[in-house]
């Protein structure tokens, strides 16, 4: 937009100012990962690499990380499938109860985590009679992740229209072929965006997870929570967080590149 130079500068200053504020606590995390004082008080009382060494040795952290990645990956996959199906149904057809279904998809994210947590906890144990495990976490996460995929795919479908699908049918492709060769590739960047948000949501979820995790199922947030209660372990948690931030930049950047490249094609 045509803004006056001072307005642009003000906006830029605001944006970068807020971003700086956003990164400030992360700096604290970084500082604490080398803070000699294990209770992470400010200012740091000295430098040490002890926590990094310990983190490197911590197979618990590694396993929890792997568990979280697995949970998030599987939950995201389920959410991708279900969210896409729902978006297709709701965007392309009109039927009785459409609004209810729409509300139903939003509900798991719109209702507070504790509510979803105890509802699912109760549902799994008392109603379905299944033992809590890694899979119950996956199911719970998938349930509230559906909405992010759904939103992204629906917005994309709305913009896409049906002409490409018609062109495909016109050229002789059946319903399945058209979906595989035309619709799905068109949805790729929306799936990427929705999937990434779903992944992030699941990866860092703790409240619902607390209620649906079975014994031995330690996701990273749970490991972190536990270690905050464990002597001499808290700073290691900071190291893990720093490592996460650093390593997350790569996939985030890649996804961003990929989706904007894909969008450029449009």
């Amino acid at each position: 937009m045509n803004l006056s130079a001072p307005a642009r500068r003000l906006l830029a200053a605001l944006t970068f100012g807020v971003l700086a504020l956003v990164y400030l606590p992360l700096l604290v995390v970084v500082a604490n990962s080398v803070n000699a004082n294990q209770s992470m008080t400010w200012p740091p009382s000295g430098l040490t690499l002890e926590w990094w060494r310990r983190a490197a040795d911590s197979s618990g952290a590694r396993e929890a990380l792997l568990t979280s990645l697995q949970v998030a990956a599987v939950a995201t996959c389920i959410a991708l499938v279900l969210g896409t199906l729902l978006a297709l149904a709701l965007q392309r057809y009109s039927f009785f109860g459409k609004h209810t279904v729409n509300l139903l998809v939003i509900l798991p994210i719109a209702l507070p985590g504790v509510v979803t947590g105890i509802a699912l906890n109760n549902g799994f144990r008392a109603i379905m009679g299944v033992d809590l495990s890694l899979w119950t976490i996956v199911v719970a996460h998938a349930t509230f992740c559906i909405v992010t995929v759904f939103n992204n795919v629906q917005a994309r479908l709305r913009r896409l229209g049906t002409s490409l699908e018609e062109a495909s049918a016109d050229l002789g492709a059946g319903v399945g072929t058209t979906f595989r060769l035309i619709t799905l590739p068109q949805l790729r960047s929306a799936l990427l965006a929705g999937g990434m948000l779903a992944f992030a949501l699941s990866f860092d979820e703790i409240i619902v997870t607390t209620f649906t995790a079975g014994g031995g199922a330690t996701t990273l947030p749970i490991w972190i929570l536990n270690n905050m209660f464990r002597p001499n372990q808290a700073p290691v948690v900071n190291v893990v967080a720093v490592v996460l931030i650093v390593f997350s930049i790569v996939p985030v950047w890649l996804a961003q590149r990929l989706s904007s490249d894909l969008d450029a094609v449009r």
Partner: protein
Amino acid sequence: GCGEDDDKETEAVEKLGDPEGEVSILAWPGYVEDGSNDPKVDWVTPFEEETGCQVTSKVYGTSDEALNLAKSGEYDVIAASGDLSLRLIASDEAQEINTDLVPNYANVYDFLKDTEWNTVDGKNYGVPHGYGANLLMFDKKRFDKAPTSWGAVFEEEQLKPNKGKVTAYDSPIYIADAALYLMKTQPDLGIENPYALDQEQLDAAVDLLKTQRAYVGEYWSDYLKEIQAFETGDSVVGTTWQVIKNNVKNPDVEVVLPDEGATAWNDTWMLSSQAKSPNCAYAWMDYILSPEANAQATEYFGEAPNSPQACDKTTDPKHCETFHAGDEAYAERLWFWRTPVKECLDGRTDVECTDYAAWTQAWTEIKG
């Protein structure tokens, strides 16, 4: 199944069979360390090598969370504090222990054996782990004279100078701390046991805590939070554990066992009535009571070991002294956590006592 009792076994076994090859344990953080968090902290691996029982463990943050987890029936062994143990027993989640099958039980301090929080109707439901007291911690710069009474956190006069910097344990069980103070300072209330409060007594304790709340800066439940608060000065007086004091770098912070005595916890290893691997569970209980393992675990967590033999094995030779292990006189002044139930624990039969649900309700109101 909706949690029916069909597969629960509450009677003690007569003899042990072959180990099942795996055991699942529910415990406080730091009780079951297998080196995955710190390779130097590992007493699970030797156990696994010794017995062939593979350990899976889950940790919990509060006794209440543990109760829910225990009910799922997925755990063979549970480390339960006194505010949990009776609830497990009452809901038939615990199995009587045949202490003869736990050789290391013999070493345990006598005052920890057959206590009222692990023994019901003469049946023993668990073997003790370490123990510790809920002490009074304070920043001596804020006090002319080191406090020796819980009055420091309950008397308005003494609370005033530290308004907003008082801390307290964030759990309904903390009501017992208030009750203990009232027991000593207001005898006419007739409190005999801080865990056996009739409605009137509970109300008095609640009032006391509501008064206190106005001066509280924050409640704590994880100790990292309290360590931080005392180091930075966000908190200057409040309940604590010895281990927290040991970790606070601020030299002005001290702890005291006040004149009134204190509440305390003693954790009990219990066997689940739904245990799938009772033999490995017995093996674990014996192992964790062994002097080596008990010393490691209690020292790592920061509490008193359960036997004099264990005290000999601690890496810090002063550990048992710091934590007053085996100090019976000291232990006399402790009121170990128990679950309040309707049937008064102090033997009164003319009144109904308030149960834990009522305490929870009260705690909700205290925090407001």
